[in-house]
């Protein structure tokens, strides 16, 4: 079967099966080649994983609020 014949079949798969197929294909490709494929794009990472100053301020906000509740 050629790629041209395969693509319409893939298009008809549901999202879950497409993800499974993607995982299967990714496992067939060497890591170095995968890195070349994905390094061509930028992907936003929204997780504020190192926002320690914001964390400290939020913790102070929580402590201040707890003290206010205690004294109320």
């Amino acid at each position: 079967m050629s790629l041209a014949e395969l693509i319409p079949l893939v298009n008809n798969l549901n999202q879950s099966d497409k993800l499974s197929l993607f995982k299967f294909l990714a496992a067939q490709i060497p890591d170095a080649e995968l890195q070349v494929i994905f390094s061509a794009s930028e992907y936003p990472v929204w997780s504020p994983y190192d926002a320690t100053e914001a964390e400290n301020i939020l913790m102070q906000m929580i402590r201040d609020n707890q003290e206010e509740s205690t004294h109320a």
Partner: protein
Amino acid sequence: MPSTIEFPFSDYEALPTIPITLSYAGFSVSTNALLDTGSTVNLLPYDIGLQLGATWEEQTVRLPLAGNLARVEARGLFVHVQIGNLEPVRLAFAWAKASQVPLILGQTNFFRELDVCFQRSRHTIEINRF
């Protein structure tokens, strides 16, 4: 009131999300939230804060975010969060002035208030209110 609840976590879901209901100032919003153990803070998108009736100008605690959120202004906001039929929990959010960000439940203070167990093999996320 139960202290533990389980949510489905199938093989096909890349990221762990759970349905929650946010309450603030008499308004409620039901939405999905990302459980993000790598996030230092809870993050609330701007539009959801507005739907809850919060007023940006009234929030005086300014929070400097990091990474690609560094340019996004954020302010502290307390919101009540209902998860299933657990007792509601009051969480402190970094309310970001951007609506394209996900609603994130992070270390401060979601993971300080609840234990979470990610069980891929059982296809479940277990949340325990302690």
